[in-house]
């Protein structure tokens, strides 16, 4: 459904961005999205391995706007296993490369600004986030820790460790920092997400319910938090997005609602009469809108929730509506 209302909150499906494409105004296995000032979105395209084994040209970082304007892309042939991206207050972009064990840095124009290995403290850098002071937090799927670095890669602190007890991780992936400095982590292998204080004290766990409106998480890949503290988790294994109250209880879930083509997708379909005919023969197109491996998730300053719908090569955007009024129900 396009509008989801629960517990005094409402999320409206807004629109899709992009299409499945190896170049230009489309995406190839978009794995993460990061919000930059001015409605700009960076989209990390995981792509596929090249014939030589590494660095295929469809691995790239796309730069688009939330209104679906294509600005360009960069970082082609510079990434092996890019997993996540984050943007700092100056507009610099940081990209984890889990194979190279490095953070690759680009400026606001997409120019390569170097890379760092965190003083050798990056075993398997996966998720990445910046705090208000431009410190960089990275999940290390090898050591099962959250690691904190300065923006130029100096190792500052870490917490976590392998295990399933509260505060421990099993191949963690996505990470985000709340407005108050809290650290939120998608604990992929433990099928849950966790919240910590800035210095690593465990505060809350998400997704361990085995019943209820949303059930348990299955290999969550990313996490985001809105201005009111509601928490969004990409439930990658279940192909859903789940929404939690900040202290843990589940609120609802989103299944994906992109039943209308994005602007770029529409251009492709309308330029191909055979595709138009093929769609007209399909009995049930509802599954067109569903998430197929939602991976990355981000919330912008207007509380738009932006999800990378990886296998479908698009983003899905939901808007959290603050003053929603129910329609007349006997219409």
């Amino acid at each position, binding site marked *: 459904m396009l509008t989801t209302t629960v517990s005094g909150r409402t999320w409206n499906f807004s629109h899709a961005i992009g299409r499945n494409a190896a170049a230009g105004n489309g995406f190839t296995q978009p794995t993460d999205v990061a919000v930059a000032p001015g409605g700009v979105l960076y989209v990390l395209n995981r792509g596929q391995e090249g014939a030589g084994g590494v660095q295929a040209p469809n691995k790239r970082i796309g730069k688009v706007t939330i209104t679906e304007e294509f600005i360009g892309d960069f970082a082609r042939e510079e990434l092996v296993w890019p997993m996540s991206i984050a943007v700092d207050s100056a507009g610099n972009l940081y990209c984890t490369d889990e194979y190279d064990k490095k953070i690759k840095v680009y400026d606001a124009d997409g120019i390569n600004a170097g890379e760092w290995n965190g003083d050798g403290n990056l075993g398997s850098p996966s998720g990445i986030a910046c705090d208000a002071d431009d410190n960089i937090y990275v999940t290390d799927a090898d050591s099962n820790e959250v690691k904190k670095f300065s923006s130029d890669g100096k190792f500052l602190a870490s917490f976590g460790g392998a295990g399933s007890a509260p505060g421990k991780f099993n191949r963690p992936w996505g990470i985000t920092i709340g407005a108050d400095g809290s650290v939120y982590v998608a604990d992929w292998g433990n099928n849950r997400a966790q919240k910590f204080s800035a210095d690593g004290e465990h505060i809350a766990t998400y997704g361990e319910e085995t019943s209820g409106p949303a059930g348990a998480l299955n290999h969550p890949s990313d996490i985001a938090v809105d201005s009111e503290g509601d928490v969004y988790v990409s439930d990658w294994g279940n192909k859903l997005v789940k929404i939690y109250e900040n202290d843990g209880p589940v609120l609802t879930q989103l299944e994906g609602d992109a039943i209308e083509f994005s602007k770029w997708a529409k251009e492709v379909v309308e330029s191909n009469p055979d595709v138009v005919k093929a769609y007209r023969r399909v009995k049930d197109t509802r599954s067109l809108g569903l998430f*197929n491996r939602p991976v990355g998730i981000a919330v912008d300053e207007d509380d738009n929730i932006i999800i990378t719908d990886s*296998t479908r090569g698009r983003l899905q955007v939901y808007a959290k509506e603050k003053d929603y009024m129910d329609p007349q129900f006997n219409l």
Partner: protein
Amino acid sequence: MSNREEIALLAHLMRRAGFGATRDELEAMAEQGYEATVEHLLDYENQPPVDEYTLYRYHPITEVPGGAAAPGQANWLYFMVNTQRPLNEKMALFWHHVFATGNAKVDNCNHLLEQIQMFRDVGMDNYRELLVRLASNPAMIYWLDNNENHKIAPNENWGRELLELFSLGVGNYTEQDVYECSRAFTGWTISAKMPRYPYGRHPWQFEYRAEDHDETDKSFLGYTGNFNGEDIIDIILKQPACPNFIVRHLYNFFVEDEPQVPAWNIEQPRNPDAIRVLAQTFVENDYDIKPVLRVLFNSDFFKDAMYKKVKNPTEVVVSTLRLTGDLQGPDPRLEAVAREPGYMGQDILDPPSVEGWHTGHEWINSGSLVKRVNFVADRISDTNLPGVQRIVERIAGANGATMTPEEFVENCLDQMGPLPVSDQTRGELLSQAQSEGTVDWEGSYDDSARRTGEMLALIGATREYQFG
């Protein structure tokens, strides 16, 4: 039976019923015994499946690979290299040989992977169920045009291949049977799916359209009635030719190279007694597949068939990777390596035709042989790989601080099989070993390890090593 003979027999079992095994694994199996190992392979459900989550986290393109074959091949290679259910995976490869379906036409590698998963799911269960699942498999329906098989205009492609290649073999039905069989499968089709543009591949679903099914009587292999597809399969299973045909495929794949399939109606099986025993087991067990495999792997004819089959390219690649410990888990080279069987003549998920691949000696030509040898040599000589390091450790610890060239060659042959070789081959290996003299493990371990890698690569290049 000596310990060495038992290890050799278990190595033979694992080459055929799986993708080889390391010596450590073989020794653990020897403690359980041969028959217990066969049971362990058959009871694959007791072992965990491949961790698909890890595959798709690091290789997302391989989940819904679309038109290009390589990501789909990478998906299957990952399964074969990492599986703890080797016989289950080998049976999927077996059925892919028999029910050969190709991406060149289907152009949806994701649907081929779905078919392979179906082989994993039911490929060791019951042959009737497998045929029903095959007849309703979207990739197969499109591959053999059953979506073009209409009540008013039958298309015989699926009906013909079901009889000729999937169940009975040439000579065991008439042209009229093909026609009647095809009529019975009218209406077995696929629903229109959402096109690949602009959001990638969507699933295809089997659809039975009653209005397009021919409801009139069919006369098929001596039976007459208003048959539907499943009735046809039941009549096929009553034919003596059916169990004989399928177990000959099993014999050809697991025991000994038979003539190519198109010759089976004119050339007798190499071992008619074995075919008879297996076929009888198949029928007595209502076409359950596991009992036939149990009899096959425990039979003398299987145990006597060591090194009587040319390894298919997939076996060459996967067994080398498993032996050397290369490409374990996610790896950026996965897609590139997944193309290697194709370079050797076996593009998995894309066989040359519905007849599948010609096997046995036809795997070997001047080009494919070079590819086979180089693939093995590149890895088995790489003493940085964990599996090779383990082989070197074993040879180093075999008999003392030094080793004569004769002892060195013998130990290397032992670790590579044990591989029996001709006197001529042994002489050439020995000549190479003698050129550097005594192997001094205590004085020069690293150099001895280098020599070991080179000797293993030479063995991998022998005529004998092409057999499995």
